[in-house]
Every structure is written in C-alpha cells, then in structure tokens.
C-alpha cells in the first residue's frame, strides 16, 4: 500500500491551518536502509549521523520506522513524515523545517529540548515527549543520513536586492556597528553547519529561520548550550532577521551528494514497508 501525506493528515487534529496546505509528501521517497548505510561510507556523513556511537543498520531501521510514525508508545501520534517528509525536505511554506542532513546530535538534542521545555513548541513538544530515548536517537540519525532535493532559490519568497545584500553581509561579517558576529563563525563558510552541534542554515526555509531568531530574542527558545544565539538575536532587528534568513534560504545546502548504490532487493526493505504501513494505520 502506498501511503501519501493526504491519507495521513486526515487523522490529524486541526492544529495548524497552513500546514494542511503543505505539498503532499510521498512515502515512497523514503530511502531504503541499505541505501542509507551506503552513504555512511563517506566519513563526513558518518560523523554527521553519529550521536553516541556510529549508527548501526538496526538503528537506521528504527529511525526510519519512527519517521513513518511507528513508535513504542503507540507512536508519536503524528508521523514525522507528514510534516518533514520521508526525506526530510520539510515544507515549502517554511512552517516545517528541513531536516535532511542536519547533524544527528543536533537533532537529538532538539528532541530532548522540546521534550524538556527549553524549546517549547505546541507541536514538537508533545511529539518529542512520546518518543523514547532510543527512538529520539534513531530518528535523529535517520534524518542526518537522508538526502532531499532542494527547492532552489526561486522557491524562497521574493526580497529586494538591497535586503539580500544586507543579509549576505550579516552572514559573512556580521555588523561591527551592532556588535553582531558573522554567522559563518559557527555555521560554516557557506552556512553548511558545523556538526555535531551547529545546524546548517544554507537551504533552510527563510520563514522558519527568522521565526527561530525571534523566538530566541523573546526568550522562548532557550536551548542553546552557551546562550550564543540568544545574545546574537537580541542584537538583531526584525529587518536583520528577515534579510539573513532570506539570504541563507537561497544558499545551496552543503551535504555532498553521495550517489547511493543500486538498491538491493533483499526483502528487508519491503518488510519495513509493511510494518510501517501497519503502524501508520493507527494514525488514521
């Protein structure tokens, strides 16, 4: 059975109007576990996906399962894929962040932080609280390894050339006048992140990013270990946040593309699919 976002969304409480307009996520996009394992042959991908120890195929399988909505405590209630997509592409409206290739450790920590309340969110807090420790780790590793197409700069909302220029400047050198350090200091030369703890900004959705900066400034998001983002956001104007987010949304995400080997038909993958669909039917 082929599940689509549409069928899954039917069972969701109507929490977020905008989300329902999200483009359909096709579950068949979910890469197979052996494809994911093959990507781990690249050191940088392996490092990106490692949380406590290197992800095993069991862990990736569990992660894939959780993403599809299968979890020990009767599922998280909502499959990650409904909003973030099976390949972690997120949602073009910018409500649901792109997860593909984010550092595993970073995502694991976010799930902990959602659950503990240092990053309160009315959707993610409940979801994270229902996941076990192992499931958080597994799903984080899974999304760290998957690859998603990037909608490209044209998908980002329009912005004036001046603002874009200003955003690029903030990214590269910050602002001496406002005392803002350049984002490249920590988020990497092209905003491609610095695993395990610093997420990429390149290719992330602008609306999502500027919303996060606002949450930091107003003190709602308080989960960054050293408090650096809080301090940076407190020095930024709304205009700055919009500009830098619009800039990064237009920068190509950095994960080196690893061509997966041709999928091996060993039956394993098919099994997961069945299992997954069973679990997903709970959601309906």
């Amino acid at each position, binding site marked *: 059975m082929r599940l689509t976002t549409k069928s899954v969304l039917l069972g969701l409480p109507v929490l977020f109007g905008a989300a329902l307009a999200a483009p359909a996520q096709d579950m068949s996009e979910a890469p197979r576990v052996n494809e994911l394992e093959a990507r781990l042959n690249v050191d940088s991908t392996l490092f990106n996906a490692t949380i406590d120890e290197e992800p095993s195929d069991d862990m990736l399988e569990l992660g894939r399962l959780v993403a599809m909505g299968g979890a020990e405590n009767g599922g998280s209630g909502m499959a990650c894929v409904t909003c973030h997509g099976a390949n972690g592409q997120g949602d073009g409206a910018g409500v649901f962040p792109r997860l593909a290739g984010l550092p595993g450790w970073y995502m694991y920590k976010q799930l902990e932080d959602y659950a503990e309340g240092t990053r309160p969110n009315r959707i993610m807090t409940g979801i994270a609280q229902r996941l076990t420790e192992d499931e958080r780790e597994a799903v984080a590793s899974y999304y760290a390894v998957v690859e998603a197409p990037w909608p490209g700069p044209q998908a980002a909302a329009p912005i004036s050339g001046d603002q874009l220029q200003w955003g690029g400047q903030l990214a590269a050198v910050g602002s*001496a006048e406002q*005392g*803002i350090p350049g984002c*490249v*200091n920590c988020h990497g030369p092209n905003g491609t992140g610095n695993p395990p703890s610093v997420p990429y900004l390149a290719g992330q959705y602008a609306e999502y990013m500027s919303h996060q900066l606002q949450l930091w400034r107003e003190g709602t998001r308080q989960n960054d270990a050293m408090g650096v983002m*809080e301090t940076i956001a407190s020095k930024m104007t709304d205009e700055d946040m919009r500009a830098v987010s619009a800039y990064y949304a237009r920068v190509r995400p950095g994960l080196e593309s690893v061509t997966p080997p041709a999928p091996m038909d060993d039956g394993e993958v098919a099994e997961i699919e069945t299992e997954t669909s069973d679990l997903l039917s709970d959601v309906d």
Partner: protein
Amino acid sequence: MAARTLPKTDVVIVGAGWTGLAVAKELSAEGQRCVILERGDYRHDAENFGGPEEHDELKYARHKGHMIDTPTKTLSFRNNTSETALPMRRLGSFLPGKGLGGAGIHWNGQLWRPLPSDLNMRTHYTERYGAEILDGMQVQDYGVSYEELEPHFDFFERVCGTAGQAGNVNGEQNDAGNIFEGPRSSEYPNPPMKHSPPQKIFRDTAASMGYHPFPMPSANVTAPYENPYGAQLHPCTYCGFCERFGCGYFAKADPIICIYDTFAEEDPIEIRYRSHVLRVEKSEDGQTATGVTYLDQNGEEVFQPADTVCLNSYALWNVHLMLVSGLGTPYDPETGEGTVGRNYAYQTIAAAGVFFNDEVWSNPFMGAGAMGMTIDDFNGDNFDHTDLGFVGGGYISANQTNGRPINYQPTPPGTPSWGAEWKQAVRENYLHHIGIVCHGSSMPVQGNYLDLDPTYTDDYGQPLLRMTFNFPENDRRMSEYLVGKAEEIARNMDNVRAVSTVNRAAEGDNYSIVPYQTTHNTGGAVMGTDPSTSVVNRYGQMWDHHNVFVFGACLFPQNLGYNPTGPLMGLAYWTIDALKNDYLQNPRPLMDA
C-alpha cells in the same frame, strides 16, 4: 622639527591598545579632546576576526599575521654586556601587536590581579626575612598599595566580563576560589569556565596534596554580558583559537569590543591610523613635553602639539620612545645610575606535560585561552622562602588552550622527533594529554636593561631598542623549584603513562629569544617614590616631565608571577583617576621629587 604643525589637542595618546583606548574613553568623558596615534590599521572583530578564515593556524600562529613586522620595527638582543647585540629578524619569544586593539587582540585572556605583597615587595620581604634575601637584586616597591588599586582591578575585571571564582570577598575566604588573593570588593562578574577531565584530575590531585586549586580567572566570557561601558559580550564557544588570533565571536574581551565600540559619535576622540610616532618633543626648558612628532599615513612628518602626552605604545616601545626623545635619564649598568631602561625583566616559563592512558580524554580541540585549573600555593610570598635560595614564585596551572593541528603534537619523552614512530605517538597522545604550566616571576638585576643600539637602525632611521637580558640565578632556582612541584602533582595523578618537563629558565641555559615564552616584557620605565630608581612617580607621571604619563608593564619594578594585563590595567585606571580628579584641573608634578 616636523614640516607641518597641526592644531593643538588636549591629550595625545600613542598607541590604540588596551591602555590607550581606556585613556581615551575616560578622558574624553571629561571633555578632553583626545587624539590617538596608532601605527597600525583599523580592524574589527566582526569584519576581520571571523572564523573560519581567522582559524588559519599557518597565517596567524605560525606566520604571526597580527604582530609587528620585524623588517619595519624590531629590537636588538644580547644576553649580557660582553656580547654584541644583533637585530631580532624574526619574532619568537614575545609577540607585540600592531593595529587597533594592539596585542589585546591576540592575547589569551588570563586575567589576574597582583598579590598585595607583590606591590610592596621590598618592604614585605625585608620585614619577613631581612633585607639580605634581596641582595644582588634591584627589587622595589611600586609605591602604590593593593587597597588603593583594588577598585581599579575590580573595574577592569568588569570591563572584561571576567569569569572566575572569588577566593576572598571583603576578607571572607572561599575555598573554591584562590584563598591567597587579596580581598576583593565583589565577586567576578561571570561564573568560571568549564573544565576538561584532565583539569578536574589536576584539581582533585592538587587538593589531595594539600594545595588550593581554583579555576583560572578568564576574560573568555562565559555568559551573555554587558560591561560598564554598555558593550555586550557573548559566551565563549571553546573553539581553541585565542592566543595569536582575534576573536570573531565577541567572546574574548578585547579593547575593540569592550572599549572602542562604546565610543559615541560625539565623543571628542580622533584615531589616526598608520601614524607612527617618532618622538616626544620637549619644551625649551625641558620641563614638559609639547607634543609628539609622527609620520602620517602619507609618510609625512607632522607635529601634533598637546597639553598632555600619554605613552601607551606597549612596554618596550614606551621605553624606546623615551630613549629616542631624550625623556628622563638613560640607565647605565656600570654605575647603576639613570633610570630609563632600568629593571627590565621577563617571565620564567616551565611546564610538565602529562600523558594519560585511554581512560582519560582531554579532547584538546575544545579549549580556551584562559581555560585553566590553577594553584597559587607557590606564587609570590604565599609560601615560606626561608633557605630556598630565591624570592618570588609563580602559579602552576593545568591549561587547555587549544589543540591546533600544526603546533599541538604532544609526544612523551623518548619519542623520535620525526618518522613513523613520531606519527604513531602523536596519534596515541593527542586526545590524552595536558600541559601543566609554571608561570613565574622575574627579578631585576643590575645587568638586565634596555638602551639604544649603537649600530642598528629601524625603517625610520632611529636606533633600535637594545635588550640585554639573561635570567638571574634567583629566577632559575625558582623556576626549577616550581617545575619540580608541577611534576610531583603530575606523577600523583591517576592514569598517567608518562610525564615530560621543560624549563625555559633552566640552570646553565641562556635565555633565548627564539622559542615563544610570553609577551610579558616588563620594566624599563618603572614606577616608585624615589626619582633615582624610578622613571615615573606612583601616579605613572614622569618625574622629569610632569605632563607625560606612562602606561603598561614598563611600570612594573619587577615582574610578578602573574600575566601582566590585569595588573597594568589596574594601574592604568589608577593613573586615569589621578588625571581626571587632580592633574587636569591643576597640571603640576603630583609628587615632590
């Protein structure tokens, strides 16, 4: 005389480092028009020190991108008066800065105060042990007490958002801090840094041996912080690029983000870059200075008249400027007369390297300039010097400043210095090593001094500053003693496979300007209450020219066991206080000669 004379200003400041910017900030607030002449360029943490470009070890640590260019400006060096000094053509033992922020850009941020007994060293030792213990050394009192300086140490610690654990607040001791420190008026503005497993082992081992470990006070800020001038500093990320690098994170306190950025548009401050001061000009009667002559950015010689002249060009170059300008009387090591160049001193550095087995991980790439766990039990006169054969001491500290790829390749004793075995040893030890540094004092003796070189000149045609220095026997014995203590602690630590030691002030070895030790050059224009043994009075004012004020470590009569910036900034704010509240209303010598 210069080709062109500019309109007169109230205060001219030579150098835009920590001391120069502090003077401008404080005096401009009193309405004084301040002109700062800086021989380097404008630069800024945001635009110029951001990672990942800044984290280029080759460019900044090896090729020393932020430091003076020796082909333009250097000094000559010899170990003693029987030798002929040669120009230092490459930087090594010390790394003076240039450009906005001076060396305060590429410092580590280890931020100390002196012990009360460091400041009246001669009186203190004479009372406790008898004057003979100081025989053969030109040890002196500063002429200003810890109590007088305390508010200024406290203020500078707040300017930097210093992270630490107080050991003595208003006389109340706290074992978690440095119980030997003088009473402080308040806690540190920020909590101490985090520490690595080896540092915690050092702490526990030192404590079990009866010592008193505490976190090193740090200007690598640990929490979002606003300083008294309104500058906002960010928390440190432990990236391990402090010393020799600028900090693009706004996390290591430096003169640009802590002071320069807080200058307001309307403040009467002008900074002129690429302006190299050649000399201070004197009035006809020689009693005062009239201003300074400098080469402007077009290479033109101009005269900037001023009512008050402040020398903030770094310890060594302040002395050089005095010598080339004929300010004060040059010191003569034969007769012991004269004061400019007298009591030059340095810092002894020794260390024990600790190599752990696989049970203990340091992960050295997570580090910070002032991430240290320290004991002060053997600093200053915190321990009984009877029959030890030396005075002074130093702190012993397990520091984790960086794990940078080119320079950080610890190998246990006996490892070959190249080849497969060396590579194997680096691989095995990189993540399991920490250094325990012994940072010791240095005493002034008659033969260590600064003067002008008779042979060599710099790019501007002026004679080079000549440094004549070797570690006095006193310092060598002291350094040997300290490194012995460090080694003992190292050997008592658990899971240790090997211990190595190094001592830059070892008996029998001459001081060398090649390996880096510290940029803690002190003395040469020392402060005091006796004009025959000091260049400036207890306010930092020249005895011979009352409108010349001197800042920096050149004021130290002898070097402390601590890093100099906390002490010298305490002195700077003390001098600024005297200028603001006394001198500027009524310019005159503040003490009778």
